[in-house]
C-alpha cells in the first residue's frame, strides 16, 4: 500500500519536473527501496562576481564590453601596432587610469561581497542529526537537514517550520531585511507533526524555487509505521525565509527545503533591468556626430595628403627620405595606415574622461538627495534613498506623473469614522455621553434617532472583531511569560471603561497587513468590543459586558485584490458555525440578499463621496452540512499543487454566497501632508498628473478634488461602467460614441496648447479631467476587433493628453503598468514618473522611466523596486522641481561643455595638418594631449556639475513654471548642441589662426631669437586651457569656494605643470621637446599679448550673448515682481476649502 502510494508520487514526479521531493532529516521513507537522494545545490551564498583567479580577465572583459572603453582600446591598439603620431601612452594612460580605477572599485565591492558571503556562509548553525545537535557552518547545510534556530537568529536557508517552542505551534518572524516590513508575522507549524522530530518520517514535495516571496505551495507526507501516510498542505505560512529573523519565539525546528542560491532571498537579488536616461541617449547621438566629424576629418586629411604628395618633390624631399620599408609598402596599405594615424591623432575629440566625469557626477550628485535634510522624516527617522544614480537628470524631465492614491496621495493612516448598521448611521464621538460610546447622529432622514436592534449591533461588532487577520502586538519588553499579565491589564482596562483612559488603550498595538483592518478593530474597540488576540486557533474577544468570548477560527478566506473581500469561518462557544465576510460594496452586494442592499447602499455611496473608504460586512450561518462541504472543498483546494490559487478562488466564491448584509463601515484615509500643494506645483511645472488607484471611483474622485487635481471649473469626462450603461445600448457602441464625443470636445475643439503657458486659474479656457475605470480600460485596450482596439487606444490617449489630470480607478496592478507603458510609448515618448508605496505599485514603478517609492506603511516592496525612495509625497516637489531641475541643467551643461572643449582642443590640431604636409604632426606635446582632459580642464566642470545652481533652490521651488524651461530635453536638443559645436569651431579657428598670423614672423623675442613648432603648440594650448576654463567660469552662476578653488586652481596647476614639465630634462623621455619652451614663451611680450587677445576675443561673443539674452532668460524670473506675485497667488489657494462643499458643488460639473 505504502509502496503503491510512493510509486504514484514518484511516477507523478517523473512527469512533472517542476516539483522537488525532500526527505525530512534524510530518512528515506521506505527501507526496501533504494532511494536516490536528488542533488540540490549547497547552502553557499555567492553574491560575489569574481574570484582571485578570474578577477582580471573577467573584469577586463566586462569593462571592455562597454562601447566607449572598447573604442579607446582599439585606438590604443592602433597606436601600438601602427606608427602613429602620438605615442600609445597618450591614450593608453587615461584608459589605463579609467580601467584601473573601475577595476579597483569593483574589486573592492566584490571583496566586501566576499566578506559578507563568508560571514553568512561560515555562520554556525545547529543541525539535528540522529538526535544529536551538531554545530555546522551554514554553507554545509543540505536540503533535508533539520535545523534548530534560536530567537533573534536569522534563518540560514528556507525552512519548513516543523516545531516551535510556543504552545500554539506558531512562531513570529520579521522580514525586515527582505522587504523592510518590520512587523511580526506569524508562521505556523505543519499541523499534526510529531513532537519527537527524531521519529518523524516524512517527505516534502514542493515546487521548484521561485522568487515570489509570498507564494509557496507544497505538501508533506507523514509516514507512520502502521498508518496510511497523512498528507498536509504547505503554504507560505509554513515557510520561513532565509534572511528573516525569528522573534518572540525561543527556538524552532525546521527542515531545509531551499538552500543557497535557490532560496527566495537569493533569487530576489537578481538585478533589475537597467533604465537608461534620455540624457544618455542624447550623449550617444552626439557621440555619433562627433564620430562622424572624426572620421571625416581623417578622411579629408588622408585624401588631401595624397593629393598634396602628388606634386613633384613634395612626397619625398631630399631632406626627408623614406626608409626602405616605407618605400616598399603597398600604397593602399599606406593610405589605410595614414587614415588610422589621423584617427589616432584626432581621437581626443571623443574623450574617455567624459564617461568618467559623467559617472562621477551622477554618483556624487546623488548624495545630495540622500543628504538633503528636507527629505528627512522624523517619524520614520529616515531620509531619501537613492537606488540608482543613473536617473538623476531624468527627475528634471518628467512630463507625466502617475501616482497611486492610497498611501501616496493619502496617508494610509486609517481612522474609523462611522459605521452603518442595518441602515442606521452611527458616528463615534469622543468621550461620548452615551454609556457605551455609541451615538446615532443623523441616520436616514426618516429614521432620525433610531437605532438598529441591539442584537444587530452586537453581531456587527463581533463581525468586526472576528473578520480580520490582525494580531495583537506583544511589546518587546513584555516577553512570553508576561502574556497573562498583559491580559489582566487589558481586562482591568475594560472595567474602567473606554474614553477615560485612552492612553493605555492606545498602547495596545495591532499588527496587520492592511491598515484598514487595524482601523476597524480599533473602531470596534471604541464601541466596546475588544479583540484580545489568538490563543491557538481561538480568537478571544472582550464584549461590551466584559465577557470574554472565544471563537474557534476554522478558516480564513484571505483577501485578494480580485475578489476584493475576505472572510473568516468561526465556531462560537455554542457550536454555531458562522461566516463573516467584509469587502468592497461591489463585491459584497451581489452576494447578499437584495432587499437589504438598498438601505445600506445610500450610506455607502454618501460615505464614498465624502472621501471615506467603505467596506460592507455580511455574515451567514453555516449548518453542519454546509460547513462540512466548505471545509472539504477548502482543504482539497489547499492541497492542490497545481492551480491552487484558482481552485481556492472557486471554493471561496462558492462559500461566500447567500450572505446577509449587516452593515458598512467608513474609514477615513487622510490626505498626505501638503498633497494638494505638491500636486499643484507639479501641474504648474507642466506635468500631467494621473491618479491610478484600485479604489472606487467616488472615493478616488473626492481625493482628486481634495488634492486639487480637479478644480471647480474642471469639466469631467467620465468613461466608466456607469456611463457606458447609461445609454441602454451595447457597451461597445456606447464606448465608441463617448470616445468620439470626448475626443471632439477635448482635442479638436480645444485651442492648441501653447507650451510654456501657465495654466490660468481663472481664464475661460477649459480644463478637462478624465475618469476611466478598470473595466472600461480593458474594453478600450482589448476591444473585440483589432482595428477598433488601436483606434480606441489612440482616441483615448489623445483625450488623456489633452486633459490636465486623469483619474483611473479600479485598476489592477498590471493595468497600472499597462497605462504607464502606453503613455511611455506614445508619440514624443514623454518621460514618465510613477510614485507609489505599495506592492501593487511595483509594476508601474518598474515600468515608468523613473520609479519613486514612498517609505509608507504598506511594506517596503515599492521602495525596494524604486529608483528613488522618499518618506513623504510632499518631498516629490523638491525632488523634481529643485533637485531634478538642477541635475538636468548640470549634466546637460556638462555634456555640451565636454564636447565643446574637445572640439576646440582638436580643431587646431586638424588645421595644423594643412601646414605640415598632412604628416600627422601633433600640434601639442604628448603630455598636454594626455593631461588636457584628465587634469587641466576636468575639475572645474566636475565642480560645476555638482554645485551649480543657476537659479537658487528656493526660487525653483516657488516658481514651478521654471521647470517648463527645460522640458523635453531642452538643453540637449540639436539646437543647443549646434550652438556649442559652432562655438567650439569658432574658438578652434581663432586659436589656430591667431597664433598662425603671429608666427608670420617667428622672431618673437626681443633678442631676435625664433620660436619653433613646440612654442607654437604651447601658445595655442595655453590659450585653449584658459579660454575653456574661463568660458566655464562665465557660465558659472553660483560661485562657492570650491568653484573658485578648482577654476583658479586648475589654471595655476597648468602654469605650474608647464614650468615643471619644461624645467627638467626628463630621463624617460626620448625627446625633450618642451624643454624651457613654456618659460621662453612667457619671456616674449608678443606671446603674452596674443594669449590675452585670443582669450578675450573668444569670450567676447559669449559675454555679449549673456547680456543681450538675459531679459528673456530664466534669470529674469528671480527679479520680476510679476512672478513673485504669481507665487503669492498660489498660497491662498493652498488653504484647503472644506472638502464636502467642494465635492458637491463640483459634482454638478460632471458631464452626462
Amino acid at each position, binding site marked *: 500500500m505504502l509502496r503503491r502510494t510512493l510509486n504514484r508520487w514518484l511516477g507523478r514526479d517523473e512527469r512533472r519536473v517542476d516539483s522537488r521531493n525532500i526527505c525530512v532529516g534524510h530518512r528515506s521513507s521506505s527501507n526496501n527501496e533504494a532511494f536516490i537522494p536528488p542533488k540540490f545545490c549547497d547552502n553557499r551564498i555567492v553574491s560575489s562576481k569574481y574570484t582571485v583567479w578570474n578577477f582580471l580577465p573577467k573584469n577586463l572583459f566586462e569593462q571592455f564590453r562597454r562601447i566607449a572603453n572598447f573604442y579607446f582600446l582599439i585606438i590604443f591598439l592602433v597606436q601600438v601596432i601602427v606608427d602613429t603620431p602620438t605615442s600609445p601612452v597618450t591614450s593608453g594612460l587615461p584608459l589605463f587610469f579609467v580601467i584601473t580605477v573601475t577595476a579597483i572599485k569593483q574589486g573592492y565591492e566584490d571583496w566586501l561581497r566576499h566578506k559578507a558571503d563568508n560571514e553568512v556562509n561560515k555562520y554556525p548553525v545547529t543541525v539535528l542529526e540522529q538526535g544529536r545537535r551538531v554545530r555546522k557552518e551554514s554553507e554545509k547545510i543540505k536540503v533535508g537537514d533539520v535545523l534548530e534556530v534560536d530567537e533573534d537568529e536569522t534563518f540560514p536557508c528556507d525552512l519548513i517550520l516543523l516545531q516551535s517552542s510556543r504552545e500554539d505551534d506558531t512562531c513570529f518572524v520579521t522580514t525586515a531585511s527582505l522587504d523592510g516590513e518590520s512587523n511580526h508575522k506569524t508562521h505556523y507549524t505543519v499541523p499534526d507533526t510529531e513532537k519527537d522530530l527524531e521519529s518523524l518520517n516524512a517527505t516534502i514535495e514542493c515546487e521548484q524555487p521561485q522568487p515570489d516571496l509570498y507564494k509557496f505551495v507544497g505538501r508533506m507526507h507523514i509516514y507512520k509505521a502502521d498508518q496510511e501516510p497523512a498528507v498536509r498542505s504547505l503554504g507560505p505560512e509554513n515557510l520561513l525565509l532565509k534572511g528573516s529573523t525569528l522573534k518572540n519565539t525561543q527556538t524552532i525546528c525546521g527542515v531545509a527545503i531551499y538552500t543557497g542560491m535557490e532560496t527566495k532571498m537569493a533569487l530576489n537579488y537578481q538585478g533589475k533591468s537597467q533604465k537608461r536616461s534620455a540624457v544618455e541617449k542624447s550623449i550617444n547621438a552626439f557621440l555619433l556626430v562627433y564620430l562622424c566629424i572624426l572620421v571625416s576629418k581623417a578622411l579629408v586629411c588622408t585624401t588631401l595628403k595624397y593629393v598634396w604628395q602628388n*606634386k613633384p*618633390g613634395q612626397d619625398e*624631399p*631630399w*631632406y*626627408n*627620405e*623614406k*626608409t*626602405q620599408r616605407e618605400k616598399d609598402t603597398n600604397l593602399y596599405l599606406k593610405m589605410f595606415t595614414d587614415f588610422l594615424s589621423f584617427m589616432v591623432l584626432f581621437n581626443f575629440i571623443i574623450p574617455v574622461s567624459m564617461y568618467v566625469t559623467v559617472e562621477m557626477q551622477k554618483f556624487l550628485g546623488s548624495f545630495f538627495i*540622500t*543628504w*538633503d*535634510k528636507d527629505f*528627512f522624516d522624523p517619524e520614520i527617522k*529616515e531620509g531619501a534613498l537613492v537606488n540608482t544614480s543613473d536617473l538623476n537628470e531624468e527627475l528634471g524631465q518628467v512630463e507625466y506623473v502617475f501616482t497611486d492614491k492610497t498611501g501616496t496621495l493619502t496617508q494610509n493612516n486609517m481612522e474609523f469614522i462611522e459605521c452603518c448598521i442595518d441602515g442606521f448611521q452611527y458616528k463615534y464621538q469622543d468621550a461620548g455621553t452615551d454609556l457605551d460610546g455609541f451615538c446615532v447622529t443623523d441616520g436616514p432622514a426618516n429614521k432620525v434617532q433610531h437605532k438598529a436592534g441591539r442584537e444587530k449591533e452586537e453581531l456587527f461588532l463581533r463581525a468586526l472583531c472576528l473578520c480580520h487577520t490582525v494580531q495583537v502586538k506583544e511589546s518587546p519588553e513584555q516577553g512570553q511569560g508576561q502574556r497573562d499579565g498583559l491580559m489582566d491589564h487589558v481586562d482591568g482596562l475594560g472595567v474602567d471603561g473606554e474614553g477615560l483612559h485612552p492612553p493605555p488603550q492606545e498602547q495596545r498595538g495591532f499588527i496587520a497587513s492592511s491598515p484598514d483592518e487595524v482601523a476597524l478593530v480599533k473602531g470596534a474597540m471604541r464601541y466596546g468590543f475588544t479583540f484580545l488576540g489568538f490563543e491557538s486557533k481561538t480568537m478571544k474577544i472582550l464584549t461590551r459586558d466584559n465577557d470574554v468570548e472565544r471563537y474557534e477560527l476554522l478558516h480564513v478566506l484571505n483577501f485578494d485584490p480580485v475578489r476584493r473581500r475576505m472572510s473568516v469561518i468561526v465556531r462560537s462557544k455554542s457550536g454555531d458555525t458562522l461566516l463573516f465576510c467584509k469587502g468592497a460594496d461591489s463585491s459584497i452586494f451581489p452576494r447578499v440578499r437584495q432587499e437589504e442592499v438598498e438601505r445600506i447602499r445610500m450610506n455607502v455611496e454618501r460615505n464614498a463621496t465624502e472621501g471615506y473608504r467603505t467596506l460592507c460586512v455580511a455574515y451567514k450561518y453555516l449548518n453542519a452540512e454546509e460547513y462540512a462541504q466548505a471545509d472539504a472543498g477548502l482543504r482539497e483546494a489547499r492541497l492542490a499543487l497545481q492551480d491552487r490559487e484558482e481552485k481556492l478562488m472557486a471554493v471561496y466564491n462558492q462559500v461566500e454566497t447567500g450572505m446577509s448584509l449587516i452593515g458598512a463601515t467608513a474609514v477615513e484615509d487622510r490626505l498626505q501632508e501638503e498633497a494638494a500643494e505638491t500636486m499643484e506645483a507639479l501641474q504648474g511645472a507642466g506635468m500631467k498628473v494621473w491618479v491610478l488607484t484600485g479604489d472606487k471611483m467616488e472615493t478616488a474622485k473626492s481625493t482628486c478634488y481634495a488634492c486639487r487635481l480637479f478644480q471647480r471649473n474642471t469639466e469631467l469626462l467620465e468613461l466608466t461602467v456607469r456611463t457606458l450603461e447609461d445609454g441602454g445600448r451595447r457597451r461597445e457602441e456606447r464606448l465608441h460614441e463617448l470616445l468620439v464625443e470626448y475626443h471632439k470636445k477635448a482635442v479638436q475643439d480645444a485651442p492648441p496648447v501653447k507650451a510654456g503657458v501657465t495654466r490660468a486659474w481663472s481664464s475661460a479656457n477649459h480644463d478637462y479631467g478624465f475618469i476611466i475605470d478598470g473595466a472600461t480600460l480593458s474594453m478600450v485596450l482589448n476591444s473585440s476587433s483589432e482595428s477598433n482596439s488601436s483606434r480606441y487606444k489612440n482616441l483615448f490617449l489623445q483625450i488623456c493628453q489633452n486633459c490636465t489630470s486623469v483619474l483611473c480607478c479600479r485598476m489592477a496592478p498590471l493595468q497600472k503598468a499597462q497605462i504607464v507603458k502606453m503613455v511611455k510609448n506614445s508619440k514624443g515618448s514623454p518621460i514618465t514618473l510613477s510614485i507609489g508605496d505599495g506592492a501593487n505599485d511595483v509594476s508601474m514603478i518598474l515600468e515608468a522611466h523613473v520609479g519613486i517609492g514612498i517609505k509608507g506603511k504598506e511594506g517596503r516592496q515599492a521602495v525596494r523596486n524604486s529608483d528613488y525612495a522618499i518618506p513623504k509625497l510632499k518631498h516629490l516637489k523638491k525632488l523634481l522641481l529643485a533637485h531634478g531641475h538642477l541635475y538636468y541643467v548640470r549634466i546637460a551643461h556638462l555634456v555640451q561643455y565636454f564636447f565643446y572643449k574637445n572640439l576646440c582642443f582638436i580643431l587646431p590640431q586638424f588645421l595644423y595638418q594643412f*601646414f605640415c*604636409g598632412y*604628416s600627422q*604632426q601633433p600640434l601639442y606635446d604628448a603630455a598636454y594631449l594626455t593631461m588636457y582632459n584628465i587634469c587641466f580642464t576636468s575639475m572645474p566642470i566636475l565642480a560645476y556639475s555638482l*554645485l551649480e*545652481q543657476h537659479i537658487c*533652490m528656493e526660487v525653483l521651488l516657488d516658481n514651478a513654471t521654471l521647470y517648463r524651461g527645460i522640458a523635453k530635453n531642452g538643453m540637449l536638443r540639436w539646437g543647443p548642441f549646434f550652438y556649442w559645436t559652432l562655438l567650439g569651431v569658432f574658438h578652434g579657428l581663432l586659436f589656430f589662426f*591667431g597664433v598662425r*598670423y603671429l608666427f*608670420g*614672423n*617667428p*622672431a*618673437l623675442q*626681443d633678442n*631676435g*631669437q*625664433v*620660436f*619653433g*613648432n613646440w612654442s607654437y603648440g604651447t601658445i595655442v594650448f595655453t590659450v585653449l586651457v584658459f579660454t575653456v576654463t574661463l568660458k566655464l567660469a562665465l557660465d558659472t552662476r*553660483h*560661485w562657492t*569656494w570650491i*568653484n573658485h578653488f578648482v577654476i583658479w586652481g586648475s589654471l595655476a596647476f597648468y602654469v605650474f605643470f608647464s614650468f615643471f614639465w619644461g624645467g627638467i*630634462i626628463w630621463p624617460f623621455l*626620448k*625627446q625633450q621637446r618642451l*624643454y*624651457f619652451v613654456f618659460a*621662453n614663451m612667457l619671456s616674449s611680450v*608678443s606671446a603674452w*599679448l*596674443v594669449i590675452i*587677445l585670443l582669450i*578675450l576675443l573668444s569670450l*567676447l561673443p559669449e559675454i*555679449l550673448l549673456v*547680456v*543681450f539674452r*538675459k*531679459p528673456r532668460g530664466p*534669470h529674469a524670473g528671480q*527679479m520680476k515682481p510679476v512672478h513673485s506675485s504669481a507665487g503669492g497667488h498660489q498660497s491662498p489657494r493652498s488653504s484647503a476649502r472644506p472638502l464636502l462643499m467642494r465635492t458637491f458643488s463640483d459634482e454638478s460639473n460632471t458631464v452626462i
Partner: protein
Amino acid sequence: MVKEEKEIANRPDNTAFTQQRLPAWQPMLSAGIVIPGFVLIGLAFIGIGVALFVTSRSITVLEIDYTGIEKDSACFKCSNADVKNCVCNLVFSIDSLFEGPVFFYYGLSNYFQNYRKYAASRDDEQLSGDLDAFTAPSDSCSPYDYNSNDKPIVPCGAIANSMFNDTFVLYRVVNGANKLVPLDGKGIAWWTDYNVKFRNPSVTPLKNAFNNTVKPIFWPKPAYQLDASDPANNGFINQDFLVWMRRAALPDFRKLYRRITDGEYAKGLPAGNYSLTIAYNYPVESFDGRKKVVFSNVSWMGGKNEFLGIAYLVVGSLCVLMSIVMLIVYAKFKFPEED
C-alpha cells in the same frame, strides 16, 4: 544611547555643503557692468594696439630672395643643383641708417621642418653627449642612422643631416672697396639649448669622440669641425646647428643667422651699398623652395609683426563699438532688471 546615535547617524548632516547651501557669489553680468567694462577693455586694447602698431612700423626689415630662379638674379648660376661650391654675390643698398642692433636671418619657404617623420628623426641622447648613442643611434633616425657601410652617423637623423649650410659674408662697399662687416654668431640659439639640452661628449679633443662614426651624408665637414674659427663652437653646441635643430612651426620660416653688433655697426648699418657673398650650397629647387636673407632690427615685441597691432586695434574698436551699441539698446529698451 545607541538608539540616539542611530538617529543621529540616519539624520543627514546639516552642513552647508550637504544641503547645497554653501555661501556663493552669484555674479550677474548686467549691462551696468558690461558696458563700462567693454569701454575700458576697448580703450586699453586700442592703446596697446597703437603702441604695437607704432613699434612694428618703426622696425626696418630688408628681405632679399636669393634662390636664383629668375634669370637676372645674382644667384641664378648657382641654382642648378649640378654646380658645386658655387659662390654668388648679392649687392644691395641701404638708404638711411639701418638702426641696430641688426639681426641677420635666413629664410626658407615650402620647407617642411614640421613634417612628422622629419621631426622625429633625431636622437636626443646622442645630442646630449651620450657616447653609447654614438655607436648605436636611435631607430627614429632611420634612414639617417647608418651609412651604406653600416657606420653610425653622428649626429644622426634627418634634421641634423639637412642642416642649412649656405654661408654668408657681408661687405660694406665703401668707395668701391669691400669692407667686411663683422657678424656675431653668439647668442643666436636659446640659452638653454646651448647650455643644458645639447652637450658635447666630455672627450678631449672632441674629435676622438667621433671615432668610428661618420658625418651626416649631406654634411661637407664632420660635426667637430663646424666652426673652424672658434673651437668652442663645434660639435653639438655649434650655434648654427642649435638654431637649425629648433624646428620651425610653419613651412615658411626664418632662422637667426648672425647678429651685427660689433664695433662701428653696433648702432646699425650706415646708409650705403653692401655686398653679400653667398656660398650657395643648399638645394631647394627640387621641392620648389625659396631661400632668402632678412635683415631686421627688433623691438620689445620681437621682430616686425603688423598682425598683433592691427588685431589689438580691431578688437579694441569692436569693444568700444559694442559698448556704444549696447548703450543705445539700453537707453531705448531700458533693460528691466537694471536698478
